[in-house]
């Protein structure tokens, strides 16, 4: 036996082995795609066996023998275009034309293989090149559009188909042109061997090859899934997990349904990333969940006509689903879908189970993380509430002491002497502290409203320089010294004016409270690129670096502020920050270069107003009349 004969024998044995393998798969689960592979490799195996039999009978040199073999060999390209349709779908006319051409060439072969073998040989050559070539290219395109192991297997199938066609063409040409028959005979055998190996890898890869092919995808999946437990947003985590599962499986998408422990529903993410609930037996996924076993639907719209529209919308013609559970707890269901059945889907059920298990692990980990987070959140909320109540109670107690004390004094004086004169200073104190109480209460309510994001209501274009100037004018009017370094031009922004004034007043109040007695605070307003900046500068103790962020937190008071005064709920700067942020700006604390604290906040300028600033005048004339506030009244009373 020559080396060439050995190669030929190995190739033929492999083709027969491949036929047996695909036949075994098809018998176990007869799908159209599997039957078409049986048709493809069956025809090749038949040709192999037939040629051996003819050789044994020593009639292989008969002219009709070649024709007869060709007749069966021609089944191959027809099976291939059927497989193309199974893999990626083809136009109906392609299938009809292919079938018609096949019938034509079969009839032609039957009529002429004994009389005119050359005719059938040339016709078959054309048939092989045209149809086989088309199929090989279609497989290659299908490989390009698929992912993961499906892609690798499709590449193998496309390679096998291409090599097979080349081998057949070599054989034809060798038969038609005897002068190159020797060389082409060798090439034919080599390409045929390569073809059958490629086909084997594509259609019936050994387990170790499948695992080796899966490995990089699984590794990527695990790498991607590691960070999913840490993602803050459940929806984001699930969406990522779905993408990772689909990529790993080589499917077009996947959906994870999460079971509700209380109600019979499954929660899915819709296309906008929002949760939607369905009864827990809806969809093929729901059926897999309620039955607690995996399901494969090659024709999803047919299998679940109630949701045919949903399958159509997501191009989910093939759906496979597996329950997700851990320690007997039904956590949900993993559904993987694709436009067309990945032909190898049944080979990869172990992967589906693995992904479902991994999904369970991730859901479990996330549930624990969420629980821990909720617990921490609740503890933090309880702590804040405690601190708040304590701070609020403390702050309310001081003015209340004055109000109560002064009232009892009046009461006692009048009891002793009904004609006693009323102490005007005492009454003033009582009124002032009662107003202070009122302000504290509204501050509390403000903080409460801010939590619900309801504070900044009516925004209208206004000149920030004019707002600051109006605040300064009021302070000066009441005899409070206040410096202002104003902007050259109008800085127009869309603001809720009373709220911006509240921010400035709050900052000023702090500046008076914590600033130096001998050096009045100052304000500065300027433009920085596309935003206006307003600074309130004091010359007091300043804010320690460590506290510069925290002072804007709710209820937080810097230790050095606490030592200066006991009063203050730690809400003022928090309220400022919320108002500024709702305007799209920022607020921060700096050190005043000469000592003290500088609070700066920024407000984005109106896009077109910023361009017009050179033309516009500062609308100082239309300042609204100042509504009475605690600051002005307190100053007036003092």
């Amino acid at each position: 036996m020559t080396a060439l004969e050995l190669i030929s024998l190995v190739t033929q044995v492999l083709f027969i082995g491949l036929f047996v393998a695909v036949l075994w798969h098809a018998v176990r689960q007869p799908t159209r795609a599997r039957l078409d592979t049986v048709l493809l490799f069956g025809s090749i195996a038949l040709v192999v066996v037939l040629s051996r039999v003819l050789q044994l009978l020593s009639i292989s040199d008969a002219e009709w023998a070649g024709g007869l073999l060709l007749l069966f060999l021609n089944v191959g390209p027809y099976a291939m275009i059927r497989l193309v349709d199974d893999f990626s779908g083809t136009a109906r006319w392609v299938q009809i034309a292919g079938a018609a051409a096949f019938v034509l060439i079969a009839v032609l072969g039957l009529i002429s293989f004994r009389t005119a073998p050359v005719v059938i040989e040339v016709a078959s050559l054309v048939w092989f090149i045209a149809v086989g070539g088309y199929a090989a290219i279609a497989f290659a395109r299908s490989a390009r559009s698929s992912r993961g192991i499906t892609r690798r297997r499709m590449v193998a199938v496309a390679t096998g188909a291409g090599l097979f066609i080349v081998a057949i063409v070599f054989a034809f040409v060798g038969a038609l042109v005897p002068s190159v028959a020797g060389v082409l005979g060798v090439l034919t055998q080599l390409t045929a061997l390569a073809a059958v190996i490629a086909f084997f890898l594509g259609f019936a890869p050994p387990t170790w090859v499948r695992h080796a092919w899966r490995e990089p995808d699984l590794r990527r999946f695990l790498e991607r899934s590691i960070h999913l437990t840490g993602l803050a947003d459940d929806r984001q985590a699930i969406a990522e997990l779905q993408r990772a599962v689909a990529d790993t499986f080589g499917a077009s998408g996947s959906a994870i349904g999460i079971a509700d422990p209380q109600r019979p529903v499954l929660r899915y993410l819709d296309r906008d990333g929002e949760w939607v609930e369905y009864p827990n037996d809806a969809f093929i996924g729901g059926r897999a969940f309620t039955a607690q076993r995996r399901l494969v639907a090659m024709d999803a719209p047919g299998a679940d006509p109630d949701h045919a529209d949903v399958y159509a919308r997501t191009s989910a013609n093939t759906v496979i689903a597996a329950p997700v559970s851990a320690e007997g707890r039904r956590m949900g269901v993993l559904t993987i879908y694709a436009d067309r059945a990945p032909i190898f889907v049944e080979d990869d059920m172990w992967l589906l189970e693995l992904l479902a298990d991994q999904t369970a692990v991730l859901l479990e980990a996330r549930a624990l993380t969420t629980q821990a987070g909720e617990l921490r959140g609740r503890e933090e909320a309880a702590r804040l509430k405690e601190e708040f109540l304590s701070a609020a109670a403390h702050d309310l107690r001081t003015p209340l002491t004055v109000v109560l004390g002064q009232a009892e004094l009046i009461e006692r004086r009048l009891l002793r002497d009904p004609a006693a004169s009323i102490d005007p200073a005492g009454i003033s104190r009582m009124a002032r502290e009662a107003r202070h109480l009122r302000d504290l209460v509204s501050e509390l309510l403000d903080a409460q409203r801010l939590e619900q994001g309801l504070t900044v209501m009516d925004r209208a274009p206004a000149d920030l320089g004019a707002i600051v100037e109006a605040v300064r004018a009021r302070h000066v009017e009441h005899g409070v010294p206040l410096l202002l370094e104003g902007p050259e031009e109008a800085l127009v922004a869309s603001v809720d004016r009373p709220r911006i004034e509240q921010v400035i007043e709050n900052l000023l109040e702090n500046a008076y409270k914590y600033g130096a007695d001998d050096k009045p605070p100052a304000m500065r307003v300027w433009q920085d690129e596309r935003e206006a900046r307003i600074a309130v500068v004091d010359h007091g103790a300043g804010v320690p670096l460590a506290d510069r962020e925290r002072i804007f937190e709710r209820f937080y008071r810097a230790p050095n502020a606490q030592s200066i005064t006991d009063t203050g709920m730690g809400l003022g700067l928090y309220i400022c920050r919320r108002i500024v942020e709702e305007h799209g700006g920022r607020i921060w604390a700096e050190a005043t270069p000469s000592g003290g604290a500088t609070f700066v906040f920024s407000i984005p300028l109106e896009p077109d107003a910023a361009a017009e600033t050179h033309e516009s005048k500062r609308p100082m004339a239309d300042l609204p009349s100042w509504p009475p506030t605690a600051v002005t009244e307190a100053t007036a009373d003092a």
Partner: protein
Amino acid sequence: MPDVRVLVVDDEADIRATVSAMLEIEGYDVDEAANGADALHAIELRAPDLILLDMRMPVLDGWGFASELRRRGNRTPIVVMTAARDAARWAGEIAAAAFVAKPFGMDDLITAVERARPAL
């Protein structure tokens, strides 16, 4: 009513004025100080029989004042007067004779002061 001299120490002017008026109407003789340092100075000028002391104050707080007072050997009884929840604990910390928690009315104030007086 013996002539009892009380020093009211609080950084809030309104509290000082109110507490002073409440004590005066009951016949006490009252001096005021805005913080611990002022209080130490006031004691030098006129020794009180009793000190009503706020704890959190700028410049020198209640703790600083109390320890300086004792360091000088002054045994004048102190009544802690605070809005904090820790009034009792703070009173213990500086060995005060009594405490009164804000908000307090006439009766609470006088009771606390009377309780501290036997120590005179």
